[in-house]
């Protein structure tokens, strides 16, 4: 009995796997332009990956409605990497094997770094909507990488500068969520503050994301006498900290990043969100393309788009347009088109510099006023300026 049943378990598994293999193998046979979309589509970071995937789907639908690219239909190869580097190697090789011509992704910087080596070997261009690690573009190690979002250091400089020059505070607490993104940003912010000598970092701490509460950290901020908090991380933790700070009747300034510049933050934090500053991509919601993209999302999913949706939308448009303008899917041609041919996207008219950063994509500072983020006029930043100093 054991003989049969275990043999059967194994055999049926083999057959099942074989079937799936065959089905998926055949599905990828048609002649199309293949846009790989890689990122976290499941797991705890799915909410940062799914909007980009949806954006890609909408863009592809739009392009296909107009007759495709180079006369061929565009097809999406969506692969999940759960934002883990080790899974990203599988995802990347699968996209390469599946014949992807260009890749939109990945979402997290770590996974992106791992996957880029594979794309580089295969001669594929990858463009991320959300990987902000400065090294990705500035180190020169990843020539095949482009992104439609500005890097962390530009943003940290804006946050720190805003606190010191506009709010004129002398004592700043810098917090982060121990993550790749948050900690990187916080460290840049700290080094900018320390280098400027205009203010002091009185507290530099990492909080544990997902912890049941943050009252101890909030008490510590209070104890440190900080006049402003700069937080590097995402909105879920930020809202908890802000709520607890306001509950303790602290009116310390709270300055954060584009992980917090999300309407969800305002809804979650409610009244506590009033007055919070957050840097975010320059306001493009008045851009007609952005309005159209958001409307398309609302129509398709009956909900507001999530994080990095417009960045993902712009990236998908940039990639497909570049193929169209280069009249080729070859690495060198597409890369050249991306660097030379400007394209109209929801983020404005963009093209890419030699490092792969989008020119014209920058950050400005927002403040929550009456439940909405309003761009503050005092701190418009020029993202090109800090980079020249480097």
């Amino acid at each position: 009995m054991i003989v049969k049943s275990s043999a059967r378990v194994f055999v049926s598994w083999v057959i099942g796997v074989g079937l799936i293999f065959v089905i998926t193998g055949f599905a990828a046979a048609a002649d199309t332009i293949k846009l790989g979309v890689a990122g976290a589509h499941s797991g705890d970071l799915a909410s940062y990956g799914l909007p980009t995937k949806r954006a890609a789907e909408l863009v592809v639908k739009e392009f296909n409605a107009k007759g495709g690219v180079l006369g061929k239909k565009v097809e999406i190869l969506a692969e999940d990497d759960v934002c883990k580097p080790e899974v990203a190697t599988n995802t990347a090789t699968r996209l390469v094997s599946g014949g992807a011509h260009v890749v939109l992704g990945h979402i997290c910087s770590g996974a992106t770094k791992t996957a880029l080596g594979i794309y580089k070997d295969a001669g594929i261009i990858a463009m991320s909507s959300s990987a902000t690690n400065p090294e990705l573009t500035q180190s020169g190690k990843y020539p095949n990488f482009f992104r439609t979002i500005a890097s962390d250091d530009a943003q940290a400089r804006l946050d720190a500068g805003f606190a010191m020059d506009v709010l004129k505070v002398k004592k700043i607490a810098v917090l982060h969520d121990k993550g790749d993104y948050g900690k990187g940003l916080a460290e840049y912010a700290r080094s900018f503050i320390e280098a400027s000598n205009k203010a002091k970092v009185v507290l530099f701490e990492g909080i544990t994301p997902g912890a049941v509460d943050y009252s101890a950290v909030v008490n510590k901020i209070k104890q440190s006498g900080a006049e402003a908090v700069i937080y590097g991380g995402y909105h879920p933790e930020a809202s908890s900290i802000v709520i607890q700070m306001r509950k303790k009747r602290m009116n310390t300034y709270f300055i954060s990043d584009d992980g917090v510049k999300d309407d969800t933050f305002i809804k979650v934090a409610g009244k506590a969100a009033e007055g919070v500053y957050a840097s975010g991509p320059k306001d493009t919601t008045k851009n007609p393309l952005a309005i159209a993209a958001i409307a398309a999302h609302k129509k398709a999913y009956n909900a507001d788009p999530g994080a990095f949706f417009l960045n993902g939308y712009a990236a998908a448009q940039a990639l497909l347009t570049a193929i169209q303008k280069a009249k080729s899917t070859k690495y060198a041609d597409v890369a050249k088109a991306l660097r030379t041919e400007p394209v109209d996207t929801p983020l404005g008219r963009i093209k890419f510099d030699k490092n792969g950063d989008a020119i014209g994509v920058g950050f400005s500072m927002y403040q929550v006023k009456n439940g909405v983020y309003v761009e503050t006029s005092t701190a418009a930043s020029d993202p090109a300026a800090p980079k020249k100093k480097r």
Partner: protein
Amino acid sequence: MDYFLELFFGGLTRGSIYALIALGYTMVYGIIELINFAHGEIYMIGAFTALIVSSVLAFAGLSGLSVLFLAAAAAIVYSAAHGFTVEKIGYKPLRQAPRLSPLISAIGMSIFLQNYVMLAQTSDFLPFPSLLPDLPFLSDLEIGIGSTEAIILMTTAVSMVLLTLLIKFTKMGKAMRATAQDRNMAMLVGVDVNRTISYTFIIGSTLAAIGGVLIASHIGRINFYIGFIAGIKAFTAAVLGGIGSIPGAVLGALVLGWTESFATGYVSSDYEDVFAFLLLVIILIVRPSGLLGRSTAQKV
């Protein structure tokens, strides 16, 4: 001194939430010697049910305490139902199996439930309404304890007392203790073991649901992943106190809460979890069966 008190109460609040979840772990472990990894997910489902029910009620125009009670009741009912079902499907067929099999089944359950909620609801964080009433006089007292904290502490304390009474004085409590001591012997003297185990899961899940509602209104946001981290912490607390021991779970949870709070307050929150786990390791090296665990003589 104020700073110390604030950290003290913060740790106490955190600890009492851990305690509510840790009790579920310790009760299940006491009765079937299984680390129920899906317990954190039960807590998450409790919080989600409360969110859904309260939103529907708010939509229907209700407000105030009635929403809180109805949402909490629904959370308890559904958490208990999930706990019951998880046991029936995942663990009951494995009563006679090798010891690690139910553990793997529990890990599978945990992955399944997380993804089930994520797919059926959303992967985003959702704001959780602050259902708990505001007691402004507390913050006026300036002793470093807010109204939510106070409510959490009171609810936890009341739940503990009720649980202790239930286990000490009811027939079902007696059956639980008998089953925990020796399942076969309990069966022989006429205890319906399967039913007792089901009750244990239901009670554990109820406490987790209460914890879920409290913590969700305290921090004001939930997603499908909250159960995992809270579960690991609560499990640590249960072992710290001596797994299988009910007062041990509470003590362990409070010690853990305070350790984290003071570590953050006086050292750095970078290493808050490192301190928590180091404390665990040190306590277990000194007392190998936890703070209040009985060191059972090995049967040869």
